[in-house]
């Protein structure tokens, strides 16, 4: 829990830095937070994505910025946009901050806890149907794959609709007598 909270603080710090610090600092801030994230909370850092992915994204954005931004510099006689490249580092740092914030918040308050809480409210019926739907999905995926292996696309789609329609009656019965179903 403390690790997740620390990751959340890192995200807030990075977003604050993106707004407060000059653009030339944003790349360094992003790298520092990414490294600190892996050190502090590897679980959340994994959800944020591999550092390689972020480096790749920054490179692509920087290349687009160099090409499409206002031409304010020269590199080997070719006009480039330094401001565009700098804007790309700001964009990536901001995206990293937001993704880290979402991942840390998700780890601090997992969906299962939200579902348990939902069960105690007036939305109890919705929580019930969600549990039933979650139970159904794996077998439905198997059924769809099996159907696709022997049918065309249209027939598979009709099968999906027909199967769900038949299942709806069973689910309705289950909802009407949950205590009997256990």
């Amino acid at each position, binding site marked *: 829990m403390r690790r997740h909270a620390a990751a959340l603080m890192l995200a807030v710090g990075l977003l604050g830095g993106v707004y407060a610090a000059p653009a030339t600092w944003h790349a360094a801030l992003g790298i520092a937070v990414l490294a600190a994230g892996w050190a502090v909370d590897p679980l959340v850092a994994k959800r944020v994505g591999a550092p390689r992915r972020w480096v790749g994204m920054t490179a692509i954005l920087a290349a687009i910025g160099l090409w499409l931004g206002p031409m304010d510099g020269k590199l080997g006689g070719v006009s480039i946009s330094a401001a565009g490249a700098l804007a790309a580092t700001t*964009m990536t740092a901001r995206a990293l901050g937001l993704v880290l914030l*979402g991942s840390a918040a998700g780890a601090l308050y997992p969906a299962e806890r939200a579902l348990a809480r939902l069960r105690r409210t007036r939305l109890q*019926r919705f929580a019930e149907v*969600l549990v*039933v739907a979650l139970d159904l999905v794996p077998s439905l995926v198997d059924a769809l794959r099996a159907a696709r292996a022997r049918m065309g696309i249209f027939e598979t789609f009709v099968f999906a609709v027909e199967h769900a329609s038949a299942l*709806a009656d069973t*689910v309705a*019965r289950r909802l*009407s007598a949950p205590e009997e179903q256990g």
Partner: protein
Amino acid sequence: VSASRITESERFWGHATAFGAMWGALEATVGTFLHALKIPFGGTVLAATGAAFLVALRVVYPKRGVLLAAGAVCAGVKLLSPSTNVVGPMVGILVESLLVELACLGFGANPISATLGGALAALWALSQKVLTQIVLYGAPVVALYKELLQRAEKWLHLAPSGGVRVVAPFAALVALIGAAAALFGLRAGRAALARRAR
């Protein structure tokens, strides 16, 4: 429990649950296929598939609100799935179900509402991609897209229109894909209904 003891509310939620779960299964199956083949604009294809399935649901169970409820169930399934990328697909599913629900609100599932709902759902998938990028990367994304579209206009020798002449045909194509898929769903829903009646 006899069928007569099932209330309309239970029947409603039964359909929302079964179709929401099946939509989740469809997303997983089609999504895996698209991912494996690295098909571009996979989000649009997934949205079109979802719209088709929603239209089919409205055919077999013509009750107002059921599409939105099925969307909420499917989004909930997505939220609780072990995948790391859940927020984007969840928002997409909810908005798509809302758009198809709105299209079918007046006169149920028919060729016109299906065309409208499918086109809106597919266009949303495209817009959501751009909106997500704006939220994540900030306002510079808009300037980048504008610049890119203006350059595309120059390459294609089109009259300057601020990118509209490039975006409009593309958006029309996406809307057409969504509409065609939803009409496919309408046909599939009718076929399923006929089979169940037999």
